[in-house]
């Protein structure tokens, strides 16, 4: 199976066209296999006792962060649906919706980055060598985010930034209310942009599948609640986090 597709440019030279969308099915299948494998594995494991959600609440996500998360989530899903459905044969006028969602995502990501930098909260989600202990030692609990969450965040960050940057270059090549399409990219550069956009889209599909799966896993469901309502219980906190490493504000 090819990773990229090629076309002839205006002078007949072979240039990149973009990602080979045959990979879409491969990615879906591989993601589902991994998820199924994990689910089966987990089913064979002894089920740990769930911490109680009763008791005192501690704030895990501020309202603004929750809003931004859902804005990003919705815009990414909108981008995926508008971008991918036409490729699999469901035809509709997708382009305008796609770039509007793309702008929303870009704005949300920018906001998130700026806020994170200003809040000096970057480190909470940054993977450090000490995080590796978590993976090796069950007794070693994480701070605010588990290494898996940090890994997921890092992967989504890289992929989303790439999809946004490549998307913005492509945005310059269509008509919008603010400008007529430019001819700013050479065909080979444009091909690279399409390839990056396509590959990162595929990566996003896999990452989102994993994210959804882990979110919906029973033992992790409280994280979903925290992303909706903002809090986790003290029980959940102590069962999953090291208070030395994360001392959340308990005013929630």
């Amino acid at each position: 199976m090819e990773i990229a597709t090629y076309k002839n440019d205006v002078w007949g030279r072979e240039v990149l066209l973009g990602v080979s969308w045959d990979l879409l099915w491969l990615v879906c299948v591989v993601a589902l296999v991994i998820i199924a494998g994990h689910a089966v594995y987990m089913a064979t494991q002894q089920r740990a006792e769930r911490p109680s959600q009763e008791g005192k609440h501690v704030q895990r996500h501020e309202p603004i962060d929750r809003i931004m998360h859902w804005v990003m989530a919705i815009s990414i899903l909108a981008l995926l649906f508008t971008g991918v459905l036409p490729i699999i044969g469901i035809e509709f006028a997708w382009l305008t919706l796609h770039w509007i969602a793309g702008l929303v995502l870009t704005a949300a990501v920018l906001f998130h980055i700026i806020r994170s930098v200003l809040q000096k909260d970057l480190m909470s989600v940054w993977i450090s060598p000490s995080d590796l202990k978590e993976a090796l030692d069950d007794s070693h609990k994480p701070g605010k985010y588990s290494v898996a969450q940090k890994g997921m965040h890092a992967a989504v960050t890289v992929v989303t930034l790439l999809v946004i940057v490549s998307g913005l270059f492509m945005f310059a090549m269509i008509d919008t209310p603010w400008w007529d399409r430019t001819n700013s990219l050479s065909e080979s550069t444009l091909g690279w942009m399409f390839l990056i956009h396509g590959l990162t889209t595929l990566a996003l599909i896999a990452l989102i599948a994993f994210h959804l799966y882990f979110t919906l896993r029973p033992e992790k469901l409280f994280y979903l609640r925290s992303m909706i309502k903002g809090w986790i219980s003290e029980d959940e906190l102590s069962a999953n986090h090291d208070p030395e490493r994360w001392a959340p504000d308990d005013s929630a």
Partner: protein
Amino acid sequence: MSDYKHIGKDFVPPDIMGKVTGKAKYAEDFRVDGMVYARMYTSPMAHGRVTNIDTSAAEAMEGVVGILTAEDVPATDAPSAAILTNTPAYIGDPILAVAAEDEKTAENALASIRIDIEPLPFVTDPLDSLVAGGPDAREEGNVYVRSQEGSGFRTVKWTKEQVDEFRAGREPGGEYANEWSYGDLEKGFADARVIIEEPFVTIGYAHMSMEPRTAMAYWQNGTCYMHASCQSQSFFMPGLAAMLGVETKDVVLISENTGGGFGSKIGAYPIVGLAGYFSKKIGRPVQLRVTREQEYYMGSARVGFQGWIKIGFAADGRATAADVFIVEDIGPNATGGDASSAGGAISLVYDPEAMRFRGLPILTNTTPRGAQRGPGQNQIAAVMAPLMDKAAKQLGIDRLQIRRVNAVQNDTTVYAGQEPVTSAYMDEALQQGAEMFDWETRKNQAKRNGSKVRGLGIGQGYHSAGTNGFDGLVRITPDGKIHLHSGIGNLGTYSFASTSRVAAEVLKCEWDDCVIHHGSTEANLPWNSYQAGSVSTFTQTRTNYVAAMDAVDKMKRIAAETLGGTPDDYDIDGQRVFRIGTPAQGMSYGAVAARAIQLGGAYSGQTYPEDIHEITQRSVQNLAGSGLIGVAKDKLERNGVIPGLACAFVEIELDLETGKYDILDYVGIADCGTVLHPQGLAQQMKGGAVWGMGMAGLERHVYDPQNGLPANVGFHECRIPTYMDVPSVIQVGAVDLPDPQNPVGARGIGEPAMGCSVAALTSAISDALDGHIFGRTPISADMIVNHVAGLDQSFKPLQTNNS
């Protein structure tokens, strides 16, 4: 009028039957044993350098016979066209060719060939190259100057401000390459009551011959046999031989029928060399039939102009001074030279008392240029007509009058050197046309009817129409047949036949007893002119005349030798030479021919004049002993410019809402001296009119300046006029006054027939739009609609090749 037997009479040219029945064979219709088919791989890039060629897959294909690359053919120095090149300078520049057992295999082979080309800077609009920092079409420079002092590349750049000034319609202030002038320009403008100053653009376009060029070559014992689509016959041969690296005696050129050339097939063009070298390389006959699309790439095109003109007129309409500056688009191969010819046309048609021409030929990576029907003269005719109208309006004189007052006459001197003309009757043509068209009535009729506006136009066309110094060859055989050998070529106008009739006229013989030999070197043809530049009529009538006169002289001498007396005692008629006073005493042409063979020597071609060309000499050698040979070089008087002139009157109805116009009436009048062949003349005048209509409103090159791609490479995309775009009746007439420097009084007309048409239309469109001057050809519907709506045009001022 004279009592000619053949001249001025219609006849059926010998090639008509084949054309209407489809039996006429053109170059691509020939097949010889072992022939293979070649196809070309051409440049997809406007300018580049080949870095790698991989033909391995093609070579492995069954049926592929050979591959020819630039290494297999002689190298040429830029900017000359190469047979095959590794530094293509336009899209469609041939890089290699494949020969295979059939065309499909050749095409499959082409599809498998991989060629890497490194792109180089390219340009499709001369002004983009002229502006400082702009790309050059050739690495050697952006300007190529051809002159008697020496030709060469130059790099000429103007500042952005200078280019902007030019675009704004002001006198160009930048460097130029060519200049000539006569008279006192300053005084001329000082004397002027009215001065008109306008910028202009004429966009080039393809020749669009019905027959895309084909060459089929094979070698036998060192002689190259070449079937090709040629305008000229004998004139084609030295160039062909030089291209193949052999002597002229070692080429046999077969070109009996040609489907149009219009200037694009005058002399040897690269693909004849390709077929020749390919055949030599693989040892088999090779036919190369270029596709219609390739004909658009390499089939030659009209030079485009971007210019500025200032012209002054006295109160009576007399042109006092003209100052013209032309940037010409000479394509990648520096072919053209139209601009100076345009200047010459101004000096002749409008006869300003003083004039200056300045020109700058700029290379572009567009299709190679070449002479196209009225090269230079017809572009400037289109430009000038509405300017003359504007001047007449400002002076308050009639538009016909301003043309008449400046009309070239017998005593007018023309060009930089203020040379004489052989004769000129433009004023008579204008008067005749005005009468046929009823100018006086029409000019006073109502113009507006709803959204439609009537416009009247007058156009004048000119091209020099003759040359001299070529050879004539006729032969009379013992069977009484008169053989007229014509080496002019047959591009489809029938002029090879009509000019041959001058020999029949001189020999006072029946046309049915004449046989025209043409179309192949093996038909033993004389050295004749190129069939181009409207020269055939003037030039070829002279060669036929001198050859026939030589035959008459020889017949009289043979009669005197055989029957007694002196040659002066004899005359000819009824295909006999007879004693004046006692007509019964004489010999038939057949008998004279038989006697010529007996006598030998010059009579039957054993000897011949030393001043005839080697091609004629060989033909005479081959014919020697087969009859009475009349052969001579044309040394008749020729002094001055031989003008072919025409004028046209047109009425259009232009719809302001659609930008379209109907041509209601068209009258074209030729001043071509004595009319040689009325049907042929009518055909030239009508065909030229249609061409002019295409140039005025439809035809142009379109290139995407961003990637150099041509947008129109097919008949449909090029929008040549159809039956539905031209009037169903085109009226034509002729002044029919003889030129003193032609033995039958004839001059050519092919090119002016078009110039007058395009000029009449630009004049009529301007008239319909209250004198608005677009300063551009073609004037398309979108331009008219934009103008009427008060919108900007979609092109920059003086922008070319992309609208």
